[in-house]
């Protein structure tokens, strides 16, 4: 009978999704609230903040039971409400499971715990998730919020939990926080702090491994324009694995399970060994077919051959992993000298700081006689020597393919594209003052990174318009010039703020030669360029330069570095036919030469009276991809000036 009751209780507890007794949950809640009860002083500079997190405690428990593995997070926050906005914010809670949620209020120095059932809206149709309304909340109150999250997985010989990145700053400023990981003995963790975040300390207690981090005085997290939070906000990354004894396999070897806890980065030796596993899959069909095709092209140069290998393998629509296998087989077959490079992007903090093995990219550097060709698989249109901007200038490790037993890694910096001449536009402009219409015919060429970006946008746009397409479908159906035209035309319309494109023609798709530009022409008509001034006209010449990104006016200062994508240079040449009987007057307003640490702007206007033609040259460049905090002022001024130019007006005076 006892057994039967036990079985029933077990079934019931699992049916409602609970793996822990209420006593266990209460115990976690009690420990959480106990730790938050200390006094916490708010720094004077935060008196104006909407709310302040006085203390935050997070406990991550990885628990092994007979048949399951549980991941439990117990979060306790103590928050002081300092304005009405925060009172409103903490008045309601949504989709909350009352059994996994606790609220306490400190009001006028009196601490009381709210009865969760009485503040939940009983009529909600969801059996477990409720909406809650906190009564009698006011400015000055301190609210304690506790919740528990439980994820349960069936126990297998090995389990990989998802990787997590945890920022140490939040919506409100924080006085102090304490983060803990409690791991049962068969769990392993790969964990590391970044961007000046404190590192975890460890100790062992009753067969459990415990890691903890103490942190204090964090300003509020405010995501800003151009920010990549992973490059400079204090954070830590972690990934947990479960390994049943004696069943260790390849994936988990990467985290050095014998140490249980690995607070150092990836083991590159193991990464190199994993290449050996790939080479076991040598004789797949695409390889044979491609090898046969390429062998027939016996007259091509070594460099062209590398390019062909890249395009042929990519067009075989292989996965990223298979791409690397196939390319490597072909490089071996044609006896190329090449290095294998492992790198990680700027937003992962670089190769030395990568915690998640899955985020590491492989590249090949093929060493030709006078130059190197870099091969990388990032998106459908990436060509040889075209490296994703987030990898450029990053430190990487290389090792020779020919010596698999050599585990010595040498470091290398991934090259950057030259930013010069990436975007070239030539605009021919005709004006009809009677109808106030300005007809623009634009010829545009994109090279390098800009070319890849445009091609990728086309692809992404087509995919978003046709969500059922697979990348392979796209290759087949959309990589025809005529269809690309249509997709690109629609996309251009979006870029030109909804102004319909009248004519659009792709001149070159630049599919096989990376030195060729992606080139197209488009034409459209603007009707907001001219404003009358009695018999004269004021021309918003700056509008013809296109839309300019702007920086928030409040962001004059910045304290952290900013990753802005890739360096670039735009060159515009405008040939404007000025209507007869009018002459441009304030040309001196359009002469600017500006250069600073991060880029340059050049604007020049000349009027050819005999041809009645205005020739405008507008060049702007950004020469770096990462703006250091000391360079921010320069960047701000550059962007502000570029925007100011788009606002400039030219007077056409009636002669």
């Amino acid at each position: 009978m006892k057994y039967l009751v036990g079985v029933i209780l077990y079934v019931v507890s699992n049916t409602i999704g609970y793996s822990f007794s209420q006593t266990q949950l209460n115990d976690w809640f009690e420990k959480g609230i106990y730790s938050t009860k200390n006094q916490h002083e708010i720094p004077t500079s935060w008196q104006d903040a909407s709310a302040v997190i006085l203390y935050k405690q997070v406990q991550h428990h990885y628990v092994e039971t007979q048949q399951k593995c549980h991941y439990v997070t117990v979060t306790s926050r103590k928050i002081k409400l300092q304005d009405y906005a925060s009172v409103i914010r903490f008045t309601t809670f949504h989709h909350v499971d009352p059994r996994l949620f606790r609220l306490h209020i400190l009001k006028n120095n009196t601490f009381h715990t709210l009865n969760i059932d009485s503040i939940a809206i009983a009529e909600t149709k969801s059996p477990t998730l409720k909406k809650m309304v906190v009564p009698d909340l006011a400015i000055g109150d301190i609210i304690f919020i506790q919740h528990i999250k439980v994820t349960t997985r069936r126990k297998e010989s090995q389990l990989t939990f998802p990787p997590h990145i945890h920022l140490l700053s939040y919506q409100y400023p924080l006085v102090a926080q304490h983060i803990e990981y409690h791991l049962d003995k068969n769990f392993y963790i790969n964990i590391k702090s970044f961007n000046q975040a404190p590192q975890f300390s460890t100790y062992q207690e009753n067969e459990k491994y415990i890691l903890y981090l103490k942190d204090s005085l964090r300003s509020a997290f405010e995501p800003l324009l151009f920010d990549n939070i992973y490059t400079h906000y204090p954070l830590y990354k972690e990934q947990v694995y479960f390994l049943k004894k004696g069943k260790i396999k390849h994936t988990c070897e990467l985290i050095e399970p014998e140490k249980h806890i690995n607070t150092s980065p990836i083991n590159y030796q193991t990464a190199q060994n994993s290449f050996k596993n790939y080479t076991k899959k040598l004789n797949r069909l695409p390889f044979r077919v491609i090898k046969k095709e390429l062998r027939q092209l016996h007259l091509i140069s070594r460099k062209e051959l590398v390019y062909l290998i890249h395009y042929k393998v990519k067009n075989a629509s292989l996965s990223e992993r298979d791409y690397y296998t196939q390319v490597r087989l072909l490089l071996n077959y044609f006896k190329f000298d090449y290095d294998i490079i492992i790198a990680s992007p700027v937003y992962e903090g670089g190769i030395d700081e990568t915690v998640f093995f899955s985020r590491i990219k492989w590249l090949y550097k093929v060493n030709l006689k006078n130059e190197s060709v870099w091969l990388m698989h990032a998106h459908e249109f990436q060509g040889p020597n075209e490296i994703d901007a987030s990898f450029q200038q990053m430190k990487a490790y290389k090792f020779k393919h020919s010596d698999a037993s050599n585990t010595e890694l040498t470091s290398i910096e991934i090259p950057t594209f030259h930013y010069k001449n990436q975007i070239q536009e030539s605009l021919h402009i005709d004006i009809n003052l009677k109808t106030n219409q300005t007809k623009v015919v634009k010829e545009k060429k994109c090279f390098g990174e800009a070319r890849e970006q445009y091609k990728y946008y086309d692809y992404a746009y087509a995919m978003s318009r046709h969500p059922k397409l697979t990348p392979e479908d796209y290759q087949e159906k959309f990589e025809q010039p005529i269809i690309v035209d249509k997709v690109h035309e629609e996309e251009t319309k979006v870029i030109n703020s909804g102004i319909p494109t009248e004519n659009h023609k792709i001149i070159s798709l630049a599919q096989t030669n990376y030195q060729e530009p992606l080139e197209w022409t488009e034409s459209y008509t603007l009707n907001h360029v001219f404003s009358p001034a009695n018999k004269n006209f004021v021309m918003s010449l700056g509008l013809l330069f296109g839309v300019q990104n702007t920086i928030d006016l409040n962001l004059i200062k910045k304290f952290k570095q900013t990753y802005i994508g890739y360096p670039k240079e735009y060159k515009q040449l405008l040939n404007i036919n000025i209507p007869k009987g009018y002459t441009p007057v304030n040309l001196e307003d359009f002469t600017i030469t500006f250069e600073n640490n991060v880029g340059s702007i050049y604007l020049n206007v000349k009027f050819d009276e005999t041809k009645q033609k205005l020739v405008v040259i507008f060049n702007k460049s950004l020469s770096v991809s990462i703006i250091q905090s000391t360079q921010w002022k320069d960047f701000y001024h550059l962007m502000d000036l570029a925007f100011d130019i788009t606002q400039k007006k030219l007077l056409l005076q009636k002669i």
Partner: protein
Amino acid sequence: MLFIIGISNGQKTSINESIDTLLALDSNRHYSTILSSHEETYSFLLDATKESPVTVVKATSLKAHTLSHYGRYTHFEYTTVGSEVQKCYSSLKMNQAIDYLTAQNEPYYCNKINQEAYGIFDADNEACEKSLFLQGKYSFKELYMTHHYTDVKYLTSSYIPLDVPCLSRTIKFIIPPWLKMDVIPMNLPSYDVLKKDTLIGQTHHTLVSYQFNNILPAYYEDNSVGSSHYIPHLAFVFKSYMYQKEKYPLFEKIQDQYNWYSMLLDQVNNDTLALRPYLTKIIEGKSTEKEQIEAVFYWIQDNIRYVAMENGIKGFRPAAADKVCHDKYGDCKGVSNLAKQMLRMLGLDARLAWIGTHHISADYNYNFPSLANDNHMICALRWKNQIYYLDPTENHIQFGELASRIQGRVALIENGDTYLLDTLPVYPDDHNREIENINVQLKKDTLSCIGIKEYSGESKTLLNRFLFETEKSKIQSHLISFLTDGNRNMKVDTIYHNASNHLSRDEKMVFNYHYLLKNQLIKTPNQLYINLNFDGKIPELEIDSTRKTPLNIDFKKSYDHKISFTIPKGYEISYAPRAVTYYTPDFSINYAYTWNENQIILNKKITFHHFIVRNQYFNEWSLMKDKRGDFCKEYLILNKK
């Protein structure tokens, strides 16, 4: 056999042609499915032993066709308090009718649909959906769904347009001899309606049917008024029922509706003793009645947060005043009830009043009894031979002021066993006002501007509410964005304002600010070209005029902007654009330059005389926007003397 399970070729062709004809009427919109028929049948049940004796079963049957090779039609059944979907059948195969003899109840999915699922409003309205997956152009499937209303009073209307075009839409009422009901057509003039009344055999039921052909979906656009203003629908009035030869009222008269409301109020146990300590503190130091009334009204606005939990009967019954006071939150009924109780404790004649906001068409306004008449509750105070209306959900509003949304609406006011109906006053156009005075001077080739901006009425209330609910640390940056309207050519250096959490309700909100203005001036050796139209956009004028439905601008308001430019020494005016004037009953505009030797003044006035711009003025709206646009673009010219 083929004829039974499918449709004959002749039928197919005829339906396909009708579908094509209907779609041609609406070529701007694209549909993947269409309904050839949609029938709603309402039948009524009486169980006198129940608290709500009359219940309703609404049966919907429809036939959906795909217009391309694949299509999915989803039928939504909207349930509310005391109503639920009961049966759901559909065709088992393509082009096959439902076999009701063997049909099995099928699953459907219900989700909450209140507009602020994550916000401060919660109700139990749900959308129950069932999808039909269709394959092959013009192929069809049928759906049958029943929806049970446990109380007839919650069934108030049926809207004619559906989500997709419909060739034939029928609404039928099988009215038993014991039920007396009315159907009131609303916004129907453009429809060709066929109404039939038929007596059904020995049961003496009357079948009343409304048939509508070629129905296109309604337009739902941004900045629209409530559906009842313009979408065709039938409003239902269930008057009474007979039981054992006795007549029992349902909602025959407004009095019946009031009786039910009044009964709900009787169920509320207000503990006034518990309110006493709060009240004592609130009126501390307030000696006059007016001061005490204001203290109560403002304390509720400032301390009770609007959180609505409209589930079940709580959508109609106020929460107890002491609970609202303790919890510091409540919905419109809860806060109005609290105001009523506190004011009564001060010996004043305060009552509750039900009212429909402008969201509901004025055709309702208690012209007939219906729960669709109102969506809001306020407190009515009879004081000094006048009725004052207090809406405590309108944070920062002054005592004696009314929000636009309830101006001109009819309130149903408590009056013991009976009720009072009173129409709320309507304020003049310029009550809600934004005044701006900008002084522009040319200083060393740069335009330097000093601006003063004043807000009054609802314009002020809204802005004050926004600032009150904004995080303290973000107020300054929000104010700059607000004053410049994101115009980066305005470089603001100083702002002084009286906007704060403690702004007195009878003060105007005033901003004083200074900024430099870029790219608005062209200087040649002998001339200055300047455009003084650089101040913020008028948000209402940003709305596209190519719309189908009335344009909701929330409340009547006037913008009164004056920009003065001091003529620099040695210059005189050479050219100024011509004035623009426009007047319609819904809006008017007057833009004009005037000048003397020292100064050029641009006066810009826009007034919205109504809270909506009606369809008949869309042409004028469009013309006005064009003329104004042309005026704003033009430059002034000043010549050197």
